[in-house]
């Protein structure tokens, strides 16, 4: 029975983590969050090249994140680093007529980051440890929303034009331990301190008739007079834990399981108003004055990073070919549990929902060539990313219903499927370099140095 103590510990930890729930408010109903999709990419160019399939493989240092049990596959101390170039593309109904035409405007930003770094080592034949730094959230957006007429609003109202930016970053500093229970079964746990930085600002201004108003009655432009402003500027820390298991079925087949109890940050958002707003009878109908914080603000905002549970399998039909696949269940619904109400205090917060999603990752690696004894690999894969944008479920107030429906539900929703491609080379017994490209999304470069 002693042999299975680590299993019991891991099991207990997983059960405890699964059973923990929170009732804290999550995100808010300002313009920042409706389009904020949390996407968790698997670290490592190798995994990314294989469609992010890695739970059932977990045979390099990135296992600390994907499946800590995989650290037992390491045979030497090593440093692993990943550089990531991500093209963040956010589609918003930003144009003046977008809420009618439903034609989104793509807002793109490029993020370059050293997104993963780890030091890991086998301690003995039974235990391996690792320390990792993982940037799992790196969201940056600058956007401008035009004055848009709200469809189906009985009071014939328009959204204020909004000028906004958001910078959210979250980094996990984790320590991992993997343990070989039997020759076939390995388990692992990663405990992490997560550092969250949030800096967002959304400024709504009053609007006035635009130059084409005569021919286009919805042509309004910003007057430059601030109506109100919401902002988050905070740093938080929270703990997270993940556990995993790898089971070697036979020489060819491995299966893996992982579960992550993600961190839950609690930050705050402030709403400020302009005392000079619409204080004049003529255009621009007001003056910009020092903003005043509204009553009941700042409000507490919970950022419930979604937990996820995955299972994967890897198969080696021969020495050159590797095939892997994962299925990951993402608990996105936690993001909008009891949404903090910045606007429409007549709501409860429960009107906002985010669907959970199940991702499927498939990929393969093939040793195409040995260059002077150094194996060269090509990889390809595909993964799905089901839509998980927030939806507004409705309310009895027609005006509120029209506004929130326009804000949340008119956005295009697509289940995403992306292909990946990658190459890699092992340079002797000491180094590996891998690169991966996630079509229209990401370029990943990673390297490991073994000692």
């Amino acid at each position, binding site marked *: 029975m002693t042999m299975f103590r680590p299993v019991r510990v891991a099991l207990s930890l997983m059960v405890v983590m699964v059973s923990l729930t929170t009732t804290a408010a999550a995100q808010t109903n300002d313009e920042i969050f409706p389009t904020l999709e949390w996407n968790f990419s698997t670290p490592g160019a*190798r995994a990314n090249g294989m469609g992010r399939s890695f739970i059932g493989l977990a045979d390099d240092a990135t296992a600390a994140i994907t499946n800590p049990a995989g650290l037992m596959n390491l045979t030497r101390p090593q440093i692993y680093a990943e550089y990531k170039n991500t093209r963040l593309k956010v589609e918003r109904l930003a144009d003046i007529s977008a809420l009618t035409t439903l034609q989104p405007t793509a807002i793109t930003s490029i993020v370059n980051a050293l997104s993963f770094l780890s030091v890991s080592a086998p301690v003995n034949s039974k235990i391996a440890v690792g320390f990792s730094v993982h940037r799992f959230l790196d969201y940056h957006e600058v956007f401008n929303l035009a004055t848009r007429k709200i469809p189906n609003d009985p009071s014939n109202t328009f959204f204020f034009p909004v000028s906004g930016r958001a910078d959210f970053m979250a980094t996990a500093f984790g320590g991992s331990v993997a343990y070989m229970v039997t020759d*076939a079964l390995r388990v692992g746990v990663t405990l992490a301190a997560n550092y969250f930085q949030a800096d967002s600002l959304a400024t709504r201004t009053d609007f006035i008739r635009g130059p084409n108003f005569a021919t286009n009655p919805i042509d309004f432009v910003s007057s430059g007079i601030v109506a109100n402003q919401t902002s988050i500027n905070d740093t938080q820390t929270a703990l997270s834990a993940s556990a995993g*298991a790898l089971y070697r079925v036979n020489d060819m087949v491995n299966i893996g399981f992982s579960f992550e109890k993600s961190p839950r940050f609690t930050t705050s958002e402030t709403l400020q108003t302009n005392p000079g707003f619409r204080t004049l009878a003529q255009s621009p109908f007001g003056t910009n004055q020092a903003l005043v914080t509204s009553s009941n603000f700042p409000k507490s905002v919970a950022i419930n990073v979604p937990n996820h549970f995955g299972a994967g399998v890897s198969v080696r039909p021969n020495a050159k070919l590797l095939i892997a696949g994962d299925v990951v269940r993402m608990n996105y619904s936690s993001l909008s549990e009891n949404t903090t109400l910045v606007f429409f205090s007549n709501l409860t917060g429960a009107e906002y929902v985010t669907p959970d999603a199940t991702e499927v990752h498939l990929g393969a690696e093939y040793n195409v060539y040995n260059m002077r004894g150094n194996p060269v690999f090509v990889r390809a894969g595909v993964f799905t990313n089901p839509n998980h944008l927030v939806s507004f479920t409705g309310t009895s107030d027609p005006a509120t219903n029209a506004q929130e429906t326009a804000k949340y539900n008119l956005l295009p929703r697509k289940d995403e499927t992306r292909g990946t491609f990658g190459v890699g080379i092992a340079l002797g017994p000491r180094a590996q370099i891998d690169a991966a490209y996630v079509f229209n999304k990401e370029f990943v470069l990673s390297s490991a140095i073994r000692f």
Partner: protein
Amino acid sequence: MKITAIVAALALALALGGSAYAQNSRWADPYQKGVKAFESGKYAEAVAQLERAVAADPKAGPNRIIEGVFRTDYFPYYYLALAYVELQQFDKAQQNLDKARSTLSRQQQAKFTDAESKIKIALGSRPPQRNAEFDNGVRDADALLSGRQFDAAIKRFDQLRAMDAAEYGKAGLAARRDEAVKGLAGQLTDEARASISASRFKDALAKLQQADQVLPGQKPVTDLLAELKKREDDYQRLKTEGQAAFSSRNYSSARDKFEQARTAHPEQFASDNLGARLTETSTLASTGPRGARGGSTGAGNANNTGNANNTGNASTADTVDPRVVEGRRFADRAKQLITQGKYAEADAAYASALKVDAKNQEALDAVEKAKKFKGLRDQGLQLNKAKNAAAAQKVLGDARNLDAARFEREGLTSTLDALTKSIGQEPSKLALQEALLALLKGDAQKSIAILEPALSSGGDRAASLHAYLGVAYATRSLSAPKPDDRTRLREKAVEQFKLAASAQPGYELSSRIVSPAIITIYNEARR
């Protein structure tokens, strides 16, 4: 709760699924250390590490995955073969070479041809060496076996089997151990036989029981055990009869019974402290009644003559029969005549003994034996006259077996030899067979009686006849109670052994039927 249940079920399934195929890259570290040690010339360390790698994963092959994208050729058997060559453990080198050959691809085999050649050269130029300790053990065991230290040899063989059962089987040591077992059983039987000759029956019994344990079911052993049983039974019967005779005041008979009991089993006789009783009985038998010894009352025995000492108020019941005394006297005379070869007179003396004492057991036995001998002799001679050579030869052979000394004394040996030759047998061979049979039965005297007359017709078998005559003398020497007899008989044995060696230099006694002590005498004699 649903997720919790799924997770718990999965984890439980994992925990219970412990009989999975054991494979991982734990071989990598010891393998790489082993290769490094080999390349540094640390062959013993290389062997230790490489054997660890093989224990972790015996499946060798090229381009094995260590972790992730890292691969290495995994050829532990190749390096083990080379390392073992360096350590001069060629058999292990060969074993690993064979394994390495089967795991290498054709291309890689070509690559390793040089190494293979190196091993072949090494194996060819150096004698294969097995485990030194095992080999030394084999040498020890063989030395013990040839030195007839069978017990120690068996133990050594058993140690070797425990040390390396495979090598034990391959070297055919089981057969050699069986040989040692048979040798030990034979040795114990010889020693038992010698003990019987020396009337050390308890010792003989212990030896025979030990021999039966070592190698159960051997006929000589069971025969000797039966003989000992008969002796024991005879002793008990004679003792009971002697005591009964004593109680009935038949002292002469009691004395005879006690003497026969002593002959049948001297050790038990001494153990039962019957010596004093025999002395007393003999005295009573020879001196007649003497003074009162107890409180019995009444008149003395009507047969009492002389030495009556009825002075008290009671008379003794102890008396000695003068006819018994006379009978013994005649019997003693007969024995003396036999030693002089005067068998007819001896027969007459025994007959006289029986006339005066019809219960004289010695005389009864002697008369019976003489009667039987004469019957066989006469029958054999008649058959010879009737030209029935085969039957005559058999009957005369029985007569010689019954009383070889008398047979020889009466000049029947030449007749028997002629008959033996006439039916296509060799007298010397027959004599040798019968003498050996007598030896095996513990009757060295009979063996001497058969062999001595056979010496004249020894021919090609002279060496064997002399040798086993020497064995018979030596056997008697070893069991003779008196030092003078021992010396005399040993000298005779040595003389015969020298004659045997002279007749056939290099002649060896069979260790299966001759005890080590006698072989030692033989070896000393022929130097």
